[in-house]
């Protein structure tokens, strides 16, 4: 298949080209072939000299050359006339509007055919420069391969800053009408393509076609005046049973000035290209596809338009709109294209062959995913990353990025694998539950209901349930997967979130890695995974983004640049406050401190700008969480609590020493020795760093955060406040405050050590370096110890997946069938305390501790149930218990208790046993009249409210998002690269 003539110019580029050489090429006799080159020019005076020079430098010159000036208003006609005179070519002025008509005019100027030779036409653009062997390669390959059409490798010329890049190797058309060019976007031309392949078509630039086929197909279709005409021609040739090949050995430099918007009067070229692409796809549709394809094309185009708008590329969206309008308005074009296709009467086999030369149905999606993946890797490796949403000033140092990409990738992959091992018991059958984690909603609809359906005076459920529902939606609508992913992914997610922050504030890459890993381990050391604390994990992930955002806000206020950071900070802060409202006042205090500091350092202008940005950020939060503010005002204790805080209980507060060692209390904390070593090391590093480099930038801020966090932890744990709408008394968990404190400690240590490392590099060798190396080893070992504990035992504990429940399924099924009936579940702890809850047919799910479970905001009923439970568990033999249960609509009572107590409870009048297991029993109460059934449907105003919140966040996200880098520009290289499909934000 390989064909490459000897002694090509590309040999200079590719010293190994001889490997691919074959003898067969030498046997092709080009003397039997006559080539007529037709160069059509339109307002191309700037590029035509180079094109003509290329023509004159060919190793195998065309037999005839026709230069067609297609109604240019510049010097094109004069340039053509001069060249024709000099080289004995023909120059033809033609008042035509399409390339097709230009070629036709050129052909019409020629007379006579050579009966002994096979005629070929070679079509050229005025912005194309053929490499010397281009024609020889094309013709040889076409003859050798028995192809009717041969298209060259088109490259964008090299510039001073940028190497030559391959732009096309034949052209196909995706189902959306998008151009498919058979090379990767931005691929540097290194001669790496060497295989001749069949293609659907190609650009008309450099396209070689046998004259008889040209005549049979009636040449180019004037319905496509400027773009896609070559693809149409090739497509029709394929349908006619002819072969169309791309010859990579033949190279033509093509500036693509039309697509690049560089040609005078070519502003609409990109829109036309889209329009023609869609028309081409619609024209080639057959059967039912004739109806469906236009609809699909229009819908796809609208979606692309929205995508461009979200990517803040309004010019691209404009192109798309123009293309769509052109397609819809210019339906006559489709008919004209179809008329030519109809003449061919293709065989089914040829139709299938042509279809096989087009990209598959999901090719575009795959390219988008590839692009996003590549983009993420680029970003995560250096400053920027996920939090590019919250920063403006991200610049990538190419050198650094490549040297660190491997380390970051390896670390990320290792941490993900470690998380899978550590979280081994989080996967499997059943539902994931823990001391602070209720089962996720059964389906997406229920997950949204938990958020949207208000209880009591609320306008809406707690906002963290909305975040959970949206994450569930993203995870193919499985709330259980969302919960599992968050609990199991605590460390990797925190690591990914904190990396960009470390890159922003730390110089030394080793210190960055230490700080990132140390921070990422904090949630598990604080019991996030073992206790199932979604709020803590959410805080661990979002907090670095908020900090990064605030740094961005301050930077942008000082520099006076964009507002993106403000919007981005607002979005991140919204997520954080949704889970942990306490962060809102904390951030406000932080911003006020920043205002003072900026005022002192940079004056009033910067303060004004900072205030403006701070207001924007807070406005995003205020509006996004609007329905939740009344609840926060009515019950101020919400400010201190996280998700489902009612589960926390009122056990004794941790001591100061426990807090200092990152032990907020609760079940399944990390072993004391692990906390002591790992957290102790953080203290040591922070203090040593502070003593050695007390002036390091950011050190005081880090300590302020750390000490503020510890003070908050102390304050929170000394309180007992009502939680949830049912006002259950709890001692607020110190976990999130400790996350802030220990995060500050990590930051203080890292900043100090970073400064020390910087100093060491400039210092002569002495005892200091070995001591520093030893300290580094100790730091690394403690982090490894923490990570080791996490992998081995970090996932073990009461948070586990189980399908064994106290309440049998038939109970919830029965309750579900009779709205307004309820169940009472009681578990008697070792100390005799009766833990109880009332549930409905929906069971108990995430958010029910906040939403008051089966009783909602009915405080009186809650009191009655509490007393009733106490009487029941006391096994007093009180015969009014059944009557009281009936009054409350409680039809089932499920109790987990020691057998003897269950036996005594069994003596309660009116209870009929319906289920018996060791240590568990379920009774039914007869003749229960349903109580008022809770609301179970979302009303239109509630839905409207949620949509409004979503739209607001999308707007904020839009304002925060970076622009699509490859938006329309006058840089042809970039434009062409973009046209090749690289539509990913960079």
């Amino acid at each position, binding site marked *: 298949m390989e064909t490459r003539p000897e002694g090509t110019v590309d040999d200079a580029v590719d010293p190994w080209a001889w490997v691919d050489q074959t003898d067969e090429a030498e046997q092709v006799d080009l003397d039997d072939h006559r080539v007529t080159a037709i160069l059509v020019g339109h307002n191309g005076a700037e590029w035509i000299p180079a094109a003509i020079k290329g023509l004159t430098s060919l190793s195998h010159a065309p037999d005839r050359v026709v230069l067609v000036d297609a109604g240019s208003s510049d010097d094109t006609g004069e340039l053509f006339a001069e060249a024709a005179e000099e080289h004995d070519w023909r120059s033809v002025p033609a008042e035509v509007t399409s390339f097709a008509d230009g070629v036709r005019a050129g052909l019409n100027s020629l007379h006579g055919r050579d009966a002994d030779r096979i005629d070929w036409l070679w079509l050229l653009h005025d912005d194309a420069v053929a490499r010397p062997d281009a024609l020889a390669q094309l013709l040889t390959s076409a003859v050798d391969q028995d192809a009717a059409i041969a298209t060259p490798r088109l490259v964008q010329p090299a510039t001073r800053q940028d190497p030559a890049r391959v732009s096309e190797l034949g052209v196909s058309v995706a189902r959306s009408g998008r151009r498919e060019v058979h090379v990767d976007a931005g691929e540097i031309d290194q001669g790496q393509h060497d295989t001749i392949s069949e293609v659907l078509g190609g650009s008309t630039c450099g396209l070689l076609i046998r004259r008889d086929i040209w005549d049979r197909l009636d040449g180019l279709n004037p319905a496509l005046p400027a773009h896609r005409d070559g693809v149409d021609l090739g497509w029709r040739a394929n349908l006619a049973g002819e072969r169309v090949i791309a010859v990579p050995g033949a190279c033509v430099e093509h500036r693509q000035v039309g697509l690049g918007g560089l040609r005078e009067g070519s502003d609409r070229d990109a829109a036309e290209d889209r329009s023609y692409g869609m028309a081409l796809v619609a024209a080639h549709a057959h059967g039912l596809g004739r109806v469906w394809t236009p609809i699909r094309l229009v819908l796809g185009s609208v979606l692309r338009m929205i995508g461009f708008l979200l990517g803040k590329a309004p010019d691209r969206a404009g192109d798309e709109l123009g293309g769509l309008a052109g397609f819809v308005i210019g339906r006559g074009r489709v008919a004209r294209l179809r008329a030519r296709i109809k003449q061919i009467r293709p065989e089914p086999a040829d139709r299938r062959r042509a279809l096989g030369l087009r990209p598959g149905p999901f090719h575009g999606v795959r390219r988008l995913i590839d692009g996003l993946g590549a983009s993420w890797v680029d970003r995560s490796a250096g400053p920027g990353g996920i939090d590019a949403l919250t920063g403006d000033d991200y610049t990538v140092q190419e050198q650094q990025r490549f040297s660190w990409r491997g380390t970051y990738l390896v670390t990320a992959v290792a941490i993900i694998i470690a998380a899978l091992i550590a979280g081994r018991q989080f996967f499997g059958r059943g539902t994931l539950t823990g001391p602070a984690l209720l089962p996720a909603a059964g389906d997406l609809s229920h997950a949204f209901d938990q958020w949207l359906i208000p209880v009591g005076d609320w306008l809406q459920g707690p906002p963290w349930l909305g975040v959970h529902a949206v994450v569930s939606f993203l995870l193919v609508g499985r709330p259980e997967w969302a919960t599992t992913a968050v609990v199991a992914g605590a460390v990797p997610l925190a690591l990914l979130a904190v990396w960009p922050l470390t890159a922003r504030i730390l110089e030394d890459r080793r210190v960055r890695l230490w700080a990132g890993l140390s921070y990422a381990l904090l949630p598990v050391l604080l019991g996030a995974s073992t206790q199932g604390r979604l709020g803590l994990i959410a805080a661990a992930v979002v907090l670095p983004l908020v900090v990064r955002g605030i740094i961005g806000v301050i930077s942008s206020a000082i520099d006076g640049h964009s507002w993106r950071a403000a919007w981005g900070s607002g979005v991140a802060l919204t997520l954080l406050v949704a889970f942990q409202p306490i962060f809102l006042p904390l951030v406000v205090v932080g911003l006020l401190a920043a205002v003072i500091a900026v005022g002192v350092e940079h004056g009033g202008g910067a303060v004004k700008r900072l205030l403006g940005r701070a207001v924007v950020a807070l406005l995003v939060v205020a509006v996004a969480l609007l329905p939740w503010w009344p609840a926060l005002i009515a019950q101020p204790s919400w400010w201190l609590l996280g998700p489902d805080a009612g589960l926390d209980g009122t056990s004794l507060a941790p001591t100061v020493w426990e807090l200092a060692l990152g032990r907020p209390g609760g079940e399944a904390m990390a072993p004391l020795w692990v906390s002591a070593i790992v957290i102790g090391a953080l203290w040591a590093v922070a203090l040593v760093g502070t003593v050695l480099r007390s002036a390091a930038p950011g050190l005081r801020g880090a300590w302020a955060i750390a000490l503020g966090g510890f003070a908050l932890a102390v304050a929170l744990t000394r309180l007992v406040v009502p939680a949830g709408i049912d006002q259950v008394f709890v001692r607020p968990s110190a976990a999130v405050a400790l996350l802030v404190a220990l995060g500050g400690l990590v930051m203080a240590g890292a900043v100090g050590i970073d400064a020390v490392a910087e100093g060491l590099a400039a210092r002569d060798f002495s005892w200091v370096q070995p001591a520093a190396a030893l300290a580094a080893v100790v730091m690394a070992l403690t982090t490894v110890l923490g990570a080791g504990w996490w992998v081995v035992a970090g996932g073990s504990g009461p948070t586990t997946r189980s399908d064994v*429940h106290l309440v049998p399924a038939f109970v919830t099924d029965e309750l579900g069938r009779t709205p307004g009936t309820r169940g009472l579940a009681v578990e008697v702890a070792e100390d005799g305390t009766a833990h109880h809850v009332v549930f409905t047919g929906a069971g108990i799910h995430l958010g029910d501790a906040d939403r008051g479970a089966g009783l909602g905001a009915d405080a009186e009923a809650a009191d009655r149930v509490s*007393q009733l439970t106490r009487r029941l568990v006391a096994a007093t033999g*009180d015969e009014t218990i059944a009557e009281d249960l009936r009054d409350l609509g409680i039809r089932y009572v499920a109790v987990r208790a020691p057998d003897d107590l269950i036996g005594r409870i069994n003596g309660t009048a009116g209870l009929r046993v319906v289920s018996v297991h060791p240590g568990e029993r379920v009774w039914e109460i007869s003749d229960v009249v349903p109580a008022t059934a809770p609301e179970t449907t979302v009303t239109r105003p509630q839905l409207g409210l949620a949509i409004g919140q979503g739209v607001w966040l999308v707007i904020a996200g839009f304002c925060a998002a970076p622009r699509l880098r490859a938006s329309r520009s006058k840089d042809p290289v970039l434009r062409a690269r973009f046209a090749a499909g690289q539509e990913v934000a960079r």
Partner: protein
Amino acid sequence: MRKIDRHITPAVVIAGMALVGAAGWFVPQASPPLDSGTGEVDARTTVVCATDPDDDREFELVAAGNAGGKLRLAELGQPDDLEVLTEPGAAALKVETNPYGVVATGPMTTSSASALLALTGSGADRGLSAQPCRGSGDDHWFVGVGAGGTQFSTVLVTNPDAQPAEVSIRFHGPEGPLNAVGASGIEVPPLATRAIPLEGMLTDGSVDDLDGPMTIEVRTTAGRVEAVVHDRHQDGTETTGADWTTATVAPALSQVIPGVPAGAGERSLVVTNPGERSAVVRVEALGVDGAFVLDGADEIDVPAGATVRVPLEGPLQGDAAGLRITSDQPVVAGLNAFSEAKDRATDVTTPVAVPPIVGSAILPIVSTADVKGTVQLSNTGDQPATAEVVLRDRNGKEIERSNVELGAGATGVIEVDDPALWAEVITEADQLHVAVVLTSTRNQTAGLAWLPAISPPAGQALPPAVVDPRVAR
């Protein structure tokens, strides 16, 4: 100057740490508001006393209460009240065989008790019999029963509800669990007592010696029941005593039997290990001067599922006492105690393990014209305890108040000489087990009976309760 600057940050940091630490050290932690209260308000409880439908004796139904509310005495399931108490006092009714219910409402649920008494001079039930009226339970253990030979026991199962109930009976003999016929799926009609004689239930060969010690477990499989055992002892054709045996405390590692009668006569401790591992049991007497291990009873092996009898009349030497049985496996325990007096016929009673009283308890019968009562209080706590025993008459009037001081492990005895009908025992101790031993010399019989003091569950402090949605996940 720069040197000073260098030290400012560390100094401020350390000062901040000290400040936060001090705050954590000295700021007291808030406590949740206490959720106190009892189940007395609007509560209603029913206790049941049952007799053998074939038992033609005359009985005395006694109920006493020391609170407001209402205490109704009625035949089970009958709408008419036999008597109603609405203020502190007692009621004593002569009744015939029937199941009787005593329904307490309001404060009476926390401070009332009732019992059934029978005193007969002849026949198979000769002697003094007493049973406390008790509430329904899921599982009833009866220790020291018999299925033939010298002891014939009949289980009286009463269904207090309008729905049928069902029970099954398991036997534990000297060698272990015994096979029985017709012992499962025994239906108990609504609002009625069913008498289930144990005689004949054991299949041939399942037990070699019917005189061996035996314990039964009456387990409710549907509905709820109250159960008591009617025991008749005989030697050949000669009646040696009869009484009701009330259910003992469910299997536990420690059991306390208060009210071991003073005086001569057989004292056979019966211990059953219903578990699957053999138990080593130790028996202590809680004497007037404190606890001591009884000779030969410091290490008693009880095979898995088996029942053993331990003669204690020797070691006890006729003293009033309590018994503390401790074991490495959960066991149940009771004591067959016979009276013995010159020129008088013998009688029997079976004190069983009971829970400690909580705060106060009512003893519905202490003494009458024909019956003399001895209140025995055993303190099984580690610390000395005090208690007040207030004797009252039918109208609730206080007749006598005795203060009892008890050392750790000691038993106190109050002989009641004055005619009194009922008593209230009040204590702050949490390990005080109380019973009254009733004796009678009427009809040439050394009548002997035993009644425990049991605090009404409704009067106990209710356990704390917290809302916890995790329970139903």
